[in-house]
């Protein structure tokens, strides 16, 4: 028997491609965000509201990740925004090479903000760097206030938390305070927004932050 030392990261290939993506975003002055949540938390609805708001104010592009169908990309295209659909065909998360390939279909010149909507899943996407500036995690009130404690890696690895579906709070046992404090226990530096994609509440503040974060990226 002999022992062969390896000491290599399992995800090194993904991480290398992610670094190249990040360099590409930097060279184009693009603020790229990786939007993650469980299925049905409202990622695409938040995107639609965001596009309504930012259309004409901030040039942006969208990459949509789904296990099947291009329904989401079609929803986004209605807003006149370049949108590329990645269909993972069973894959539970996006990987850096899928994003790199999708970027070929987007004219990057002039784009200031790239939103990458990951596959709905609070576990697997937390491992995979796509080259984004930051992960933004969306948690909806209908999921309950304990999600940050159940999926700590995702909340720890994200920089921003958007709490969505706040219009439904009167009908739920979810406590906004508990949800916030659970998230901040995992990650005290999380920036928190509260939104309702139905009533539009909180969308202004969220979009204003996106605009200012995108302009920071260009400096």
């Amino acid at each position, binding site marked *: *028997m*002999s*022992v*062969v*030392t*390896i*000491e*290599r*990261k*399992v*995800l*090194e*290939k993904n991480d290398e491609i992610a670094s190249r993506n990040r360099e590409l975003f930097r060279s184009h002055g693009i603020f790229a965000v990786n939007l993650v949540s469980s299925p049905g938390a409202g990622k695409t609805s938040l995107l639609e509201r965001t596009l309504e708001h930012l259309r004409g104010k901030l040039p942006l592009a969208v990459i949509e990740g789904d296990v099947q169908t291009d329904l989401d990309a079609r929803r986004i295209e209605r807003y006149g925004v370049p949108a590329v659909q990645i269909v993972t065909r069973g*894959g*539970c*998360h996006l*990987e850096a090479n899928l994003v790199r390939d999708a970027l070929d279909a987007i004219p990057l010149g002039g784009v200031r903000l790239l939103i990458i909507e990951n596959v709905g899943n609070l*576990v*697997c996407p*937390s*491992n*995979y760097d796509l080259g984004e500036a930051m992960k933004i995690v969306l948690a909806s009130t209908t999921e309950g206030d304990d999600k940050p*404690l159940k999926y*700590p*890696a995702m909340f*720890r690895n994200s920089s921003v938390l958007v709490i969505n579906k706040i219009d439904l709070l009167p009908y739920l046992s979810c406590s906004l305070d508990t949800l916030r404090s659970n998230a901040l*226990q*995992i*990650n*005290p530096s999380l920036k928190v927004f509260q939104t309702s994609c139905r009533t539009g509440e909180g969308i202004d503040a969220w979009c204003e932050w996106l605009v200012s974060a995108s302009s920071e990226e260009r400096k």
Partner: protein
Amino acid sequence: MHELSLAQSVVEIVQQYVPPGNHGGVKSVKMKIGELSGVVVDSLAFCFEAITSGTPLEGARLDVEHVPLRCRCKTCNRESDIHDNVFRCGVCGGADIEIIAGRELQVLEIEVDDGG
């Protein structure tokens, strides 16, 4: 359930280290997996076994070194363990901490049967 793609990456890495002309096969693969790596070790072991069947890695044991979450406090500069999802310094209670261990997902070494 990304353990299958992780198992594939592990196999790809390991295959580069099997000495050329080896017939005895790989007996074990040692990995380091952190608490916050998001990996279910049992699933990884199951996927590893499934995809190595019929290859020189068949029957290789997956040894996992589990790494608990540990942080360094930027306020008091001390190191402590993180328990029960409370991401605070275990010494002074400060929230401005840096994770120094627990995110690992590494292949450390393999044991190869070289007939010796």
